[in-house]
């Protein structure tokens, strides 16, 4: 490591070595060259940019708002159209309901065969039982009308006329008719039977009412019979 004394001596000596060159290379302060840039184009550029930006932003916003309106109205339209498509699909499904198809087919005279037949196209032979397969019967498509709720057919109120007043048996006849209107002939039968039993008891008790009651009983039985016959006919058909 060199001593501090020798370094200081070196420093003092060094500038003296290339004094002329150093003198030449020294920088001097020169006056600033002031050029005046044209202000107008710059101001107008900035103004233009500013204006362009604001107007552009405004237009952009407006167009976005516009498209938002369009989007909303299109969305509404899409919802409406899909709802319409759905309801049309529903109508289509109703038309494809096996029940509807079968009803139309039966109206055209088509029937379900008892068994299929197979035609062999290579030799024209028929596989299956051609006679048996032709046995056809229409399918019963609709249920019977629902039975009247028992609430609508309360037990007949029997009014026994006071001593000396003639009975015209109208109450019983009306009850028989009400029973007859019921779709379920089995029920009508049962009711008629019950009524008949009741009446048989009453008959024994009240000889005076006998005639009118007998009449009503016959009427009820006839009605039930007729109903059963009609139902049977319906079934056979």
């Amino acid at each position, binding site marked *: 490591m060199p001593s501090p004394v020798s370094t200081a001596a070196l420093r003092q000596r060094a500038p003296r070595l290339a004094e002329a060159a150093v003198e030449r290379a020294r920088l001097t302060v020169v006056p600033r060259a002031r050029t005046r840039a044209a202000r107008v184009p710059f101001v107008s550029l900035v103004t233009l940019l500013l204006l362009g930006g604001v107007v552009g932003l405004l237009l952009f916003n407006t167009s976005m708002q516009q498209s*938002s309106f369009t989007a909303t109205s299109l969305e509404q339209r899409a919802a409406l159209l899909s*709802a319409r498509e*759905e309801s049309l699909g529903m109508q289509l499904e109703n038309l494809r309901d096996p029940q509807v198809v079968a009803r139309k087919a039966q109206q055209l005279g088509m029937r379900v065969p*008892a068994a299929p037949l197979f035609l062999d196209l290579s030799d024209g032979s028929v596989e299956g039982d051609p006679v048996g397969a032709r046995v056809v019967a229409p399918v*019963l498509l609709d249920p019977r009308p629902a039975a009247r709720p028992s609430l609508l057919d309360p037990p007949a109120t029997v009014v026994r006329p006071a001593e000396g007043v003639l009975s015209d048996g109208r109450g019983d006849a009306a009850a028989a008719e009400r029973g007859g209107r019921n779709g379920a002939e089995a029920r009508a039968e049962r009711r008629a039977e019950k009524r008949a039993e009741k009446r048989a008891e009453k008959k024994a008790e009240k000889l005076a009412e006998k005639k009118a009651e007998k009449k009503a009983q016959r009427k009820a039985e006839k009605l039930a019979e007729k109903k059963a016959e009609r139902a049977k006919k319906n079934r056979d058909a």
Partner: protein
Amino acid sequence: MATSRYPRRGAPQVRLRIGFVLIAMVLSVFGGRLVQLQGLDPGSYAAMAAAEGSRDVVLPATRGDILDRNGEPLAESVDGVMVIADPALVNTDEAGNPVDRAPQLAKLLSTKLDVDYVTVLERLRRTDTRFQYMARAVPAAKAAHVLDRARARGFDGLTTQRDPIRVYPAGDVAANLVGFLGTPLGDGTPQPLAGFERTFDAQLSGTDGSARYSVAAGQKIPLGEQTVVEAVDGEDLTTTIDRELQWYVQRVLRQTVYGARADSGVAIVMDSRTGEVLSLADYPTYDANQPLESDEADLGSRAMSDVYEPGSVEKVLTLGALVDAGRVTPRTRLTVPASLARQDRSIGDWFDHGTIKLTLAGVLAKSSNIGTVLAADKFEGDELRDYLTAFGLGEATDVGVRGESAGIVPSGSLWTSQTQDRVAFGQSISVNALQMAAAINAVANGGVRVDPSVVRGTATTDSGQRVGTDTTTSRRVLSEEAARKTMLMMERVVDPDAGVAPRAQVPGYRVAGKTGTAQRASSECGCYDGTFTVSFAGFAPADDPRFTVYVVVQNPRNGGGGGSVAGPAFSKIMGYALRRYAVPPTSTKPSDLPVEW
């Protein structure tokens, strides 16, 4: 001096002090309010600020459809709305004067929306409320049309709200299985009440989504807040039911029940090879679109919930088991007496006869109880019971239909030799219709019992059970040879000369089947009450079975038996199924096993 200089205003320091105090008071009020807003409950205020000008909507999930095996809908969802009126707005004109517009609007609504004029009129005249239902579950397109019409005529005060509609396009077809929904809640949440709708609700219902966006003047603000959580739609449920076949089976069943003046009936069509239930029909049934119009007892599936004694159909299982165990052959000769005295009672046949000589095939063809009991004597121990359990009796089928009853196969101390005698011909044992159909199907399927299924793929029930065609298992119950021999014996049942059910034949096809006429046990008297269960189970084509059909009719009043009531229904259903699936006849020689010797 001072007092003369500031005579009115007082000293400036005093005034300053008073001024500062006032300012400090005002500022501390502001500060207090600031603490209140920002310090105590900033969240709710922020939410209130955000809610101003923003709108939350529910994005409803569409409920999954219930489909048949071909993708035809048994139940589907349609966008619907409820039409609501504000009576006060309706009866006010533009200038705010009261007018009576109720009659005109009621007229419009009643003609367009199928609602009752008087009901609507009364609702529109109410003055104590501003919310009245006009119509519910209106298809969205129709409602929009009506509202446009009303607006055009100057009626105000009508609005709509979401009210989804569930439609069952085929009405009563498979209604007992599919079930129905109740009236949805106010927010449109469906209320599944029965059937698959309820059992598989988790799969069908999906999850509602939500959307939140900023609005101004009814329009979305384009760069405003917008968050959307998409709705997850419910998944469809595909069943193994064939809609067309199911329809036909239901109609034939109804006709059969009418014809026999019976209480109820069940008809099942199974694919013999896969155990898939193509049709499971109940009568009485109901219209799934109008479930309230039917009796509550008819809303379930009797095929699954009602158990009964199967009667002679069960002989197929007994004799099949005997053949499988190697104790008998179809030609085994039996001498059948007129009646058979057993320990506790004597056993008779349905037809009067002296001592007759029947083969085992004849025992089945003529449906002889005595012959069956004599043959069943060859079982050792609980063998018969084990076979019946293997056939799946006494064990729930767990196909995913609600309210199944498992039936009873007597066990333990209840399985006595007397019990075995009766079980051999189908008494003292109870089954549900699907169990019995699956058991007979085991014979059709070459002795392998396949679990029945009504759901395609897999689905999870509300009790967490996985059901469906993917979860079915199969097990061999009879050897293939024993199953074939049993089939040959069953074929004699529909023979016009040898058997008791010629009307169950399908023209051109080989059919194997068995009739059943069983006494019905009444729970009221704890005895046989004199009514009957008649049934017919069988499969076709006999030598290469494709379908197993089982028809059961409860309490026929026309005196008919299994052959005359259920047999023709079986024939019709089987003929239809064979035609629908284009199954050709096998053109082989039918069984000619001797029935007598």
